[in-house]
């Protein structure tokens, strides 16, 4: 889309007026909508000096919120990675009744508002919920505790890994696995030495996106955590709490931590995309498998 070197009639939709208008519109909206708020976060966080910023971060409640967020991610991300790989494997390598339905089910968290998920969990695992009394009797506390936070985070991020892997693994087909098995490799061996190396970038990409979302999740977690300061407050919840307490600087300081996490994620994402992960990734090296002969009439 660079400017033409020689003077020639512009391509359709490529007249200078159109270009300038479009670019200007996108840049201005981007600046006001995305960039400005981010800069304000950092500006506000340090508005009363580095000392106040450091104090806020060092506050036990903030530190606990950071710890809880990291802990949630440490549990939820690996579990969802395992789920995503298993789901993608099942959907792309097996034929079974209800395959399409499973794909739809995996996508549900993308379209459902997270707060709906939170409320739903409350009705399943809460004291008045379906399993609530039984869990309570067994002394297991799910709601307003870490398990609830992890569950809600997992619901919201369940599709991330699977969504990255399914198109890739579909394109790769089953040939590689069949070849490995016919050469005598076991199922595990096939997975670790053939399947995994071929999906590793897409997998990491999915994990990075999943992690970003787990750390930033607010809606679903706010319903199931109970917002107990220093106990069940994750970082996003803590930011809201500080803000409601009129601790603007504290809120922005905590927010800046999340922002830094996000920036790290974006850098990781860009690096991974350079390796060929993501939707616009290179076509699989292995050619797509031809459908087995005579599978359809």
């Amino acid at each position, binding site marked *: 889309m660079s400017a033409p070197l020689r003077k020639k009639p512009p391509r359709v939709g490529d007249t200078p007026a159109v270009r300038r208008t479009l670019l200007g519109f996108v840049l201005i909206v981007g600046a006001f909508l995305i960039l400005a708020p981010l800069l304000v976060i950092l500006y506000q966080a340090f508005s009363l000096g580095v000392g106040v910023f450091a104090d806020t971060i060092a506050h036990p409640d903030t530190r606990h919120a950071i710890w809880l967020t990291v802990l949630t991610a440490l549990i939820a991300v690996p579990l969802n990675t395992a789920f995503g790989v298993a789901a993608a494997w099942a959907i792309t390598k097996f034929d079974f009744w209800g395959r399409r339905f499973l794909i739809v089910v995996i996508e549900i968290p993308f379209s459902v508002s997270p707060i709906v998920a939170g409320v739903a969990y409350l009705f399943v695992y809460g004291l008045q919920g379906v399993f609530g009394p039984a869990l309570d009797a067994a002394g297991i506390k799910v709601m307003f505790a870490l398990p609830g936070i992890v569950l809600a985070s997992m619901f919201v991020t369940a599709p991330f890994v699977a969504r990255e892997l399914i198109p890739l693994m579909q394109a790769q087909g089953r040939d590689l696995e069949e070849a490995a098995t016919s050469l005598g490799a076991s199922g595990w061996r096939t997975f670790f030495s053939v399947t995994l190396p071929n999906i590793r970038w897409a997998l990491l990409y999915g994990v990075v996106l999943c992690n970003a979302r787990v750390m930033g999740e607010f809606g679903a977690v706010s319903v199931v955590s109970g917002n107990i300061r220093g106990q069940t407050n994750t970082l996003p919840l803590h930011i809201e709490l500080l803000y409601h307490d009129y601790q603007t600087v504290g809120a922005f300081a905590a927010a800046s931590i999340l922002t830094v996490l996000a920036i790290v994620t974006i850098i990781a994402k860009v690096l991974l995309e350079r390796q060929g992960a993501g939707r616009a990734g290179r076509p699989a090296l292995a050619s797509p498998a*031809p459908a087995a002969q005579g599978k359809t009439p």
Partner: protein
Amino acid sequence: MKIRLDNVVKTFDTFRAVHGVSLDIASGELVALLGPSGSGKTTILRMVAGLEYADGGHIYFGEQDATDIPVRDRGVGFVFQHYALFPHMTVGENIAFGMKVSKVKRSKQQMEARVAELLRLVKLDNLGGRFPSQISGGQRQRVALARALAVDPKVLLLDEPFGALDANVRRDLRRWLREIHEELGITTLFVTHDQEEALDLADRVVILNEGKIVQEGTPEAVCRNPNSAFVMNFLGDANRLGATVANGKAEIGGASLEAAGFGDGAASVYLRPRDLDWSATEPGIAATVTRVIDKPDGRRILARTAGGEQVELDVPPETVARAGDQGFVRIHRARVFAESASN
């Protein structure tokens, strides 16, 4: 290793892919499964490999019933149409993969020696360190073959091995595969939809249609004695003309053919374009030239008979004919089939 298929059946959902196929393959034989798409040939190959399980019938390797042996333990070498090389491994690592995962432990030196030997066999001596994406399609397929041979399979199975390659690469690889087969003497079964490939390469051709074996035999046998209109059509261009049989003779407006053993009534006559000639004078079937196509080795005349049927003839290059010419088609050789044939 001898292979025997005994009444093998496979059904996908509600679709019968293979209906009771029985087949004997002698040790060291090179057999082609030939058929149009959907004829079940790939399914049969995959069942022999253990990549699909038969719903009925048995598959024997030698005297052993291999029907339910998983692919991993079946000891077959399988070559895929699209190579299925592991893209993250070098050519050498691809070839060594089977040895690495094998239950039989080999030392590093043994593996390296074997890889070098196989690279020599497939004439890719210096490419061991390349990645599959860095070599050509023909080279990839040779690597795939070397990989399949590395673990000394009892049987070599190839699924449309040259289907994804250019015509001239394909011809070279065919001859080369034949040489390797003669050198190693391994029982080989391959699938193709290309009759030329099957006839060129195989000791024996098994022709399939709609999940059943239609005819099997040496290339010579199936070419000279096709047993049905389907085989006649599938093995090469063929003209079909309607005929009437009476007293052991088939009459086609202007020509009469021997048709002993056929009952009186309608029949189909199949004629190869090469077995026909064009003549300006009688005798023959009266026809009008509609088009002439020139080829390096002769001319093909497209004509319409007086009865309104299309005929194609391959004639020598010096034959004089032009669109609109009237003349006669002379028959040197033909086959008569009963009218039941759909095409």
